[in-house]
């Protein structure tokens, strides 16, 4: 589904969709919101993570021009975003709270948002129809928002965020309160938007969903940037915690005897219930490279191999917990 061909108003098409923070800080009186943040968000879907109070809302508000940075600069599509209402034409925001005009129908609301972005009445009508179709609300768009379920409200919020076909999208907890069916649909829509070349920043607490949408994340804690990039690469860089690899093998004790002899292996734990081993190693490359030979040796065929901390939850825990 490509929305690019529908756009008529030209914008800074030459610049790749990017959000750029350069030494940006924001404090509220004495309280620090964001501390010296330098960050570039490329096109595609990026996850914004962090515990409560980490500065995620401050980051989103700075990026959408709702707050002015106390220090440093925040640029979207090459322009400073503070005091630049014209830039809103290319930015879409799906906020966490519900703030609808409950008496409007879903379609009317999205149509109004399109008009507010500068579309003519006819263009707005088409754009609203397309946006509602994209989020799967065609059936219900004629009903008043008052009667919507949580899933329908989230879909409508997403529709108003992309009705004007922005280049950059900020989604704050877009899947909250939705049932698994809606979650699947909305995730697919968001991934689709990323594939279209838009820059989508998704802030969420539900780590397994972010992981399903994208491997690229930005992790904040206490107002500072902790990690940025691909989850697996970040995992590789975390030295403090060795990689944990599970091997399942009928002759797990025999396998343990072999594995313990390797230099890079720091620990072996026997998992009796799974009939396997939990191996801790600091050089995962070296370890994984040995597995085919180990398995084919004959007496220790490995039937399963997986890592139980190669995922976003583990990375989050390692980087954020005290």
């Amino acid at each position: 589904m490509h929305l690019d061909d529908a756009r008529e108003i030209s914008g800074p098409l030459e610049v790749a969709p990017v959000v750029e923070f350069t030494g940006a800080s924001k404090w509220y009186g004495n309280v620090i919101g964001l501390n010296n943040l330098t960050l570039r968000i490329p096109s595609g879907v990026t996850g914004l993570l962090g515990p409560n109070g980490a500065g995620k809302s401050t980051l989103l508000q700075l990026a959408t021009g709702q707050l002015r940075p106390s220090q440093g600069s925040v640029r979207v599509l090459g322009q400073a975003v503070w005091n630049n209402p014209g830039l809103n034409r290319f930015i879409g925001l799906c906020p966490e709270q519900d703030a609808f005009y409950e008496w409007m129908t879903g379609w009317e609301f999205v149509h109004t948002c399109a008009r507010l972005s500068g579309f003519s009445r006819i263009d707005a009508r088409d754009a609203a129809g397309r946006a509602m179709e994209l989020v799967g609300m065609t059936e219900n768009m004629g009903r008043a928002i008052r009667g919507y379920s949580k899933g329908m409200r989230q879909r409508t919020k997403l529709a108003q965020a992309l009705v004007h076909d922005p280049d950059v999208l900020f989604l704050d907890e877009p899947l909250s309160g939705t049932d698994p069916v809606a979650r699947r649909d909305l995730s697919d829509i968001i991934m689709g938007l990323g594939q279209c070349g838009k820059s989508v920043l998704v802030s969420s607490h539900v780590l397994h969903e972010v992981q399903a949408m994208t491997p690229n994340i930005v992790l904040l804690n206490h107002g500072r940037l902790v990690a940025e990039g691909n989850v697996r690469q970040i995992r590789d860089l975390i030295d403090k915690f060795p990689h944990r690899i599970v091997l399942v093998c009928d002759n797990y004790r025999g396998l343990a005897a072999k594995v313990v002899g390797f230099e890079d292996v720091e620990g072996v734990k026997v998992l009796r219930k799974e009939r396997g081993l939990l191996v801790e190693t600091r050089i995962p490359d070296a370890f994984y490279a040995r597995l085919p030979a180990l398995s084919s040796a004959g007496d220790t065929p490995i039937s399963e191999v997986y890592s139980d901390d190669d995922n976003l939850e583990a990375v989050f825990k390692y980087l954020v917990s005290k």
Partner: protein
Amino acid sequence: MLFQLQGVSKSYGKIRALRDLSVEIPAGAIGLLGPNGAGKTTMIRTLLGLISIDGGTGQVLGMDIRARRLDIRQSVGFVPEDECLFPSMAGIEFVGYAGELSGMSRKDAMQRAHEVLDYVGLREERYRNVESYSTGMKQRLKLAAAIVHDPRLLILDEPTNGMDPAGRQEILSLARDLAHNKGMSLLFSSHLLPDVEEVCDYVMVLGRGKLLAHGLISELKQSHEGLYEVRVKADQDLFAQRLVAAGCRPEPKDDGLVVGVPAGATVGLFWNIAAASGHQIRFLRPRRSTLEEVFLHALEEQT
């Protein structure tokens, strides 16, 4: 039996929330799943004896849901989904009050409140006004208030909604501990399927007021003979080609492959190819259904 419903129906005007629902659920950690509007809230309220049903019968912990509504609530604890508080009280007063409302004497309630607040991990915070608590703390407080009278069944309605990962982990580990180690039955209603999978052994799926599926999670997940999930570190496409050459049927999924092996082939096939072509296999497991697939499959069967 934890609870049983026979032909329960409940309508609100034109909307039929529950249609002839019949189910028998054993004691343990039960997950309650269903899309919005499936009747989960109505069923929970029926179990709590809060609503009068139009038709059918039911028993919760052996007590009839029409005749012994107050007694049922004596033995059931409920953690509601929305933000709710008794206003302007300290945490310890909150839990003590909850205990007294369930019929405990003031002294028993206070003693038990301290014990339960220790268990959920609210230490010095219990002496502060509840309005100053963070979301995670409020959720644990509600959990404490729900277990202060030692219920036999604890109902949790979207307990991890809106909580950050650390808070979610705390609630889930408390729920798991209560269900598996302390002998309390749990009814866990949530849209976050991995959470349900972490805590519960048994699930029931509702859809449009009817029961779509129920059973042990391990039994509902289908086995996939001859299917494996594989991920290699680099050159996955090359690996896929080698697999095809060996008679397999690989398909991309997320950042790995789902591979169907020819009949009679074993896992050794993958190791042989990896050894020959120098690939690093980072993930190799037989294909397992996820709870999400079980859920979506049950929904599809309805339509």
